[in-house]
């Protein structure tokens, strides 16, 4: 035990000495969470709109006003020439143009169904789609307030209809933080242990201290245990910190059991620490280790359902996600947080995570040769 304790103490001292490291270890996750928590929003606001009102009737002014009274659109210019639309859209001065044709009001009063034209910059496909939806909504709402004769009347349902009564379970307010933040926890639980392990082992190889360690009677397992336990502790500390802050700032609610989450996170750490060891066995420099770790990470994150839902992927990629340990952890953490799932429902995931953990950890320990050649 003493060699392991000596290793652990040394690792902590080294982390402590590199003060920037400490700051990064704890600041980086927090910043990441803050940015993601606030940035990930499906809402589109303040779309820059230009309006060409060729009609300038009471009704057309009514439509224009509807666009001015929402924070979804910022009206940049009115009454510009039709031919200037191109310049605005191409020159990044507006994203959408609304064109109300001449005689719009007159045709509307006669019930002749005039057209309203929306032109949108499709370069940012997502925003364009959402903004178009909003604009249609605003137009339609205004339309329903206008009778075919053009006089505002109040809307009343006439035909019997099917009515959907919706209940949103687990996330009543459709708050995306509740979904994304637990995901970030998984990402952190992957990046930090994997990078730290890989980089610190390779670093010792680079500066020659690994060789020094290998001539001591300390066993391979003791060496790795001494390396990994500090990172395990650090990872857990981060986990706690990030979750606490998440609950405090984003009001992320935890419906499940902390011990269960802790236990599964522990299992998952075997996978990520193991990957770190694995990377260190075939890289010579920290730069290499970093790149390989990146390589693994990008794939794991992309294929985990973190921000691209797995059902959206093509069949083949969906199947491939089963080989990604992060996928299981992603489900587990979200289920525990949001649904309060008990271990019974998570058994398949726990099984998969345990399998991956054992496999990757054992394989990397075997590959981590105590000899050099």
């Amino acid at each position: 035990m003493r060699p392991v304790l000596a290793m652990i103490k040394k690792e902590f001292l080294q982390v402590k000495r590199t003060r920037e490291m400490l700051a990064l270890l704890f600041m980086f996750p927090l910043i990441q969470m803050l940015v993601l928590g606030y940035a990930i929003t499906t809402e589109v606001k303040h779309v820059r709109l230009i309006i060409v009102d060729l009609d300038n009737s009471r009704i057309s002014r009514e439509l224009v006003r509807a666009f001015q009274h929402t924070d979804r659109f910022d009206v940049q210019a009115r009454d510009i020439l039709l031919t200037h639309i191109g310049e605005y859209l191409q020159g990044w001065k507006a994203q959408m143009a609304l064109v109300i044709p001449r005689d719009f009001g007159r045709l509307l009063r006669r019930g002749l169904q005039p057209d309203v034209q929306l032109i949108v910059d499709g370069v940012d496909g997502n925003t364009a789609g959402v903004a178009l939806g909003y604009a249609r909504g605003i137009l339609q709402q205004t339309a329903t307030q206008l009778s075919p004769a053009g006089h505002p009347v109040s809307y009343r349902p006439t035909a019997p209809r099917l009515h959907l009564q919706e209940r949103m379970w687990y996330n009543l307010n459709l708050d995306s933080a509740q979904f994304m933040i637990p995901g970030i926890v998984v990402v952190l639980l992957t990046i930090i242990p994997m990078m730290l392990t890989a980089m610190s082992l390779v670093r010792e190889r680079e500066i020659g201290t690994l060789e020094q360690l290998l001539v001591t009677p300390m066993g391979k397992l003791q060496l790795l245990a001494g390396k990994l336990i500090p990172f395990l502790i650090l990872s857990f500390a981060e986990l706690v910190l990030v979750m606490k802050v998440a609950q405090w700032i984003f009001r992320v609610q935890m419906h499940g059991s902390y011990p269960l989450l802790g236990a599964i996170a522990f299992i998952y750490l075997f996978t990520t620490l193991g990957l770190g060891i694995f990377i260190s066995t075939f890289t010579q420099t920290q730069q290499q280790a970093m790149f390989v770790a990146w390589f693994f990470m990008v794939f794991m994150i992309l294929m985990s359902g973190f921000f691209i839902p797995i059902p959206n992927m093509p069949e083949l990629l969906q199947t491939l996600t089963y080989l990604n340990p992060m996928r299981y952890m992603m489900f587990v953490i979200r289920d525990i947080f949001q649904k309060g799932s008990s271990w019974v429902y998570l058994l398949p995931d726990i099984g998969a995570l345990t399998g991956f953990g054992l496999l990757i950890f054992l394989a990397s320990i075997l590959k981590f040769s105590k000899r050099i050649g």
Partner: protein
Amino acid sequence: MNQRKPAIVAEHLTRRFGTFLAVDRVSFRVYEGEIFGFLGANGAGKTTVIRMLCGLLAPSDGNAWTAGFNVRTQVEQIKQHIGYMSQKFSLYEDLTVRENLAFYGGLYHLRRDQIQQKKQQLFQQLELAAFETTLARDLPLGFKQRLALSCALLHDPPVLFLDEPTSGVDPRARRDFWGLIQSLARSGKTIFVTTHFMEEAEYCHRVAIMHEGKIVAMDTPETLKARSRKSSMQQVFVSLIQQQLTES
């Protein structure tokens, strides 16, 4: 001297890296309390021999015993009985002198009081006490070397491997260092040292000269000098290598 027990035995020790023959059937014995110098240019195979003797690298062929243990089968026992100082002075630069020592002491299962006691002794012997709380990175090079030596000596190993221990250190520190080595040998430790400073060979009891993976000469420095009628080891080395080159 041959009456004493051998501390290191190498028999036809060979190591290949792919098709490159780094060490070619090397045989020798080092006796207890002896300072055995391994000389050769960079890339002659000195470090590879050390690594095999420490159990860091498996031999491709041949066999060797260090402190009575086989390098193929008893690697773990070997590690209990050797100290090793690599040419890079592999220290943790971001730890202090004391922390480095405590760390290596821990690796060798030493108790805190043992580390403390040994540390006092080494501090006195190596004049390191003033630097106890200095970060390793801030030490003058000569003291880095001493610290690396202390780390290798903490567990009192009977056999000490020093791989280019004096590279980059100024001449005075080098002389002091060899004084230390000699007193260690007098206390019964076996010292296996590699160097490419030929004048340092004079400090060794016996030397082996390596060239392209082979031992081309092995004896006491005096005998080698007498045999080739040269006054310094530097000249002995040059003439031996020239001889090798003309032969091949």
